[in-house]
């Protein structure tokens, strides 16, 4: 099987993160690796840099990983997580400027066809283009 870009979903809510990942798996299929994290380590709403790093590594692919986020802190913490990755991986992770559910489904659909990380990001961001 050819490698596909991995998808990471980062929400403030673990329910939203898990539900979004479920939608991707059911709609797109299992050929794309999907990892998710949501909530802070105490079980409340929030995002955790360490959990985001773990999710990126879980979804890792040599073609890279596209991260979909919800609100404010999810984005800044995801950017921080990318900076804390081992150097060889940093340049192969992008945080997409896209709605989390729609972006994740479309990014995964594009990834399933074997597209590059740049193509996957562009498709996810098509929705916020205009």
């Amino acid at each position: 099987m050819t490698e596909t870009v991995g998808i990471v979903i980062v929400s403030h809510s673990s329910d939203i993160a898990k539900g979004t990942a479920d939608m991707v798996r059911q709609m797109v299929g299992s050929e794309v690796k999907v990892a998710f994290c949501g909530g802070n380590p105490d079980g409340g709403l929030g995002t955790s840099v360490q959990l985001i790093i773990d999710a990126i590594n879980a979804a890792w692919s040599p073609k890279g990983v596209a991260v979909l986020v919800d609100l404010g802190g999810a984005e800044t913490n995801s950017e921080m997580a990318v900076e804390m990755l081992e150097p060889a991986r940093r340049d192969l992770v992008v945080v997409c400027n896209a709605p989390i559910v729609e972006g994740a489904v479309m990014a995964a659909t594009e990834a399933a066809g074997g597209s590059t990380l740049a193509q996957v990001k562009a498709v996810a961001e098509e929705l916020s283009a205009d």
Partner: protein
Amino acid sequence: MLDRADGQIFTGNVRLVHAVGMHARPAVKLTKLAKKFQAQISVRVAGAPEWINAKSVAKIMAMRAAHGSTIEIKASGTDAEAAVAALVDLVASDFPDGAG
């Protein structure tokens, strides 16, 4: 063979039998299947002014084809004929699980 078929355009028409029309799941399946071909593939609801790139999931979802409408498919490129046949089959068979 100097006379390659690259310039030839293949077309197909198929009725959308899916109960709720072209919603998210069928759109994902159609796009995934289209991406398996090298050919340039476009679709539209019959008579619509614009053709839509069949490999763009966002545009396919947005085309809002209704139940019972006819989808027109056209393709050009090396595997265009097979692409049209596969997409017609996908729509006609109501987007079975595992397809695409």
